[in-house]
């Protein structure tokens, strides 16, 4: 009697243990599709990419081991360095631009004024458009002859630009276009801003702080962890999300001005079937992103928040 009811002996009770095992088994069954799918579709492929980087492979014959030859070859090609430079410029401009846009929008639209919901819906609008449709829309907007952007510039009295056609402005155009897709960051920062205690702002206002000081010494430090996470996310996303715009709008652009790494990888792998080269480039790209994220983490000293996930 004692043996079967006392909790101390519960782990040694056979029926109790059987029920537990069965429960865990069923939990495992529920989790299985996700784990199997993630292994098959993400973990193994990511590892396989790393292996392919050291092989010669053309999708027909079996891959053969070639050591560091792929890396030596791509380092000697100018195209790789051009794409790397373009990618760095793109990420370096697009990620801060998106962060800044999200912050400004959030600071404006966190007030509970009447009609603020409609403004938020409008600001979120470009973020929900499908990538392909968004690229086509901007291809039309940037058109130097028929596009509305140059007409607006003419209307204001500014000179027309050649946008995607010119070598100098093509990359900037892509950055500008990505700068409107800030809806998710905006929502996050609005939530973060509304989570700040009002008392801080009231006390600072009583002490005679002006708006800039309130922002500089209260809002900004308290939002910093969120801003940092958002910056990481923007870097990660903009490093790889440039494929569809480049593919749809410029195909690498006038004189390789918009050849970014994801597009180059796609060309190498699926047009020229130099899969080893493509994998090596991808490996370098991810090593670069990883190093950048680690550098940011190290510079800013941790994640800035220690909540349980």
């Amino acid at each position, binding site marked *: 009697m004692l043996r079967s009811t006392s909790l101390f002996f519960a782990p040694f009770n056979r029926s109790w243990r059987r029920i537990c095992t069965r429960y865990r088994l*069923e939990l495992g*069954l*529920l*989790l299985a*599709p*996700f*784990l199997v*799918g993630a292994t*098959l*579709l*993400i973990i*193994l*492929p*990511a590892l*396989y990419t790393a292996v*392919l980087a050291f092989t010669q492979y053309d999708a027909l014959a079996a891959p053969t081991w070639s050591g560091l030859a792929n890396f030596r070859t791509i380092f000697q090609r100018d195209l790789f360095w051009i794409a790397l430079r373009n990618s760095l410029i793109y990420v370096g401009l697009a990620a801060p631009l998106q962060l800044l846009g999200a912050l400004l929008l959030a600071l*404006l*639209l966190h007030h509970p*004024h009447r*009609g*603020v919901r*409609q*403004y938020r*819906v*409008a*600001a979120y*609008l*470009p973020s*929900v458009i*499908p*990538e*392909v*449709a968004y690229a*086509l*829309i901007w291809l*039309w*907007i940037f058109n130097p002859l*028929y596009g*509305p952007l140059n*007409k607006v510039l*003419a*209307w204001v009295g500014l000179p027309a630009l050649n946008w995607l056609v010119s070598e100098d402005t093509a990359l900037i155009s892509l950055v500008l276009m990505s700068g*409107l897709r800030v809806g*998710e960051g905006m*929502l*996050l920062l*609005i*939530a*973060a801003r*509304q*989570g700040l205690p009002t008392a801080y702002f009231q006390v600072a206002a009583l002490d005679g702080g002006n708006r800039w000081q309130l922002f500089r010494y209260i809002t900004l430090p308290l939002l910093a962890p969120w801003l940092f*996470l958002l910056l990481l996310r923007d870097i*990660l996303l903009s490093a790889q999300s440039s*494929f569809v715009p480049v593919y*749809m709008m410029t195909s690498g652009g006038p004189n390789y001005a918009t050849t970014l790494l994801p597009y180059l990888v796609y060309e190498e792998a699926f047009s020229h079937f130099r899969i080893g080269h*493509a994998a090596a480039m*991808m490996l370098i*790209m*991810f090593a670069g992103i990883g190093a950048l994220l680690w550098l940011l983490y190290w510079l800013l000293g941790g994640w800035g928040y220690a909540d349980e*996930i």
Partner: protein
Amino acid sequence: MPMRSKGYANAHLQRKHAWRRAWIVFCTKTFALARWVWSVIIGRQMQRVRWQTVLWHCTALTITFVFVAPFFWVLTSSLRPLGLPPPRALEWAPQELAWTNYAEIFRIAPLGRQIGNSILVSTVGAALTLITASAAGFAMAQTPERPRRWLVMLTIGLLMTPSTAVWLPRYVLFSKLGLIDTYTVLVAPALMGTKPLYVLMFYWGFRRAPRELFESARLDGAGPFLSWRRIALPLARPTALAVVLLTFSHYWSDFVDPLLFLKSAERYTLAVGLRMLQQMAVTNWSLLLAAVVVMTVPVLLVYLAMQQFIRSDSEAPALFMLRSPTQNFPQKGNSVRPNYVA
């Protein structure tokens, strides 16, 4: 179980009262508007309007204009008649509306077929994702502390893995399995819940539910399957709806997967179809923009539908994986639910 009866035993009575409530609200608003108009006419201000608020509205309106104007122009330009020369100056509305453009794109490209394919893939993908992601999220929420922390870390790690890294090996894998050029390839990510983020959303949703519910169900002899299906899923209805809508628009907009893994034109989805149309009618912007509108409208509808419960159930921050689930959600003795997004 009947759909949300809100204490009414009688569906007819509920409907009648709903109409009555709507009528009362309508009358009150109309009366308030009339009173305001009257106060303006006789020159007496009901409320002092602060210039800061006016300034705020002006700024917000300008920004709204910047964000919405491109899409307005897309809409009007898609209705421009085909034969006209391109406009010389900024054109706010075309002279005449050519609705035939929309018929024309369905004539020159197999858009109907492609829309059918897209709907098939998106629907199947969203349904499968609902099952797999919610099951995984539930199992994660039910596992004990230590393995759970590992699972969450693993999921976040998966979230960080760039999608470009898996293009090539997935191609190799699918061609080994002989799946290239089938619909199966397109919905394959649904096996793991499409995106790890959706699993995490379900996990947070289930963690918010009181633990006692699941514990008592377990004491009554319910296995995980039963409590997942009968207790957890109905509780997490807002999360489920959000995930379904997000997944639907993910598969609807997906361009890279069909581009890489499909070969034959009759299986193309609308995203790739748009690319084909672009190659066919490079300079014919009216047709191209009409196709863009056709592709965008379903996603916009889904987005507007999501607005309904983003407002009611502060899901928006959870969409971005950055907020801890225990922080601002109702706990014992704290029944006030903060409203983040409007």
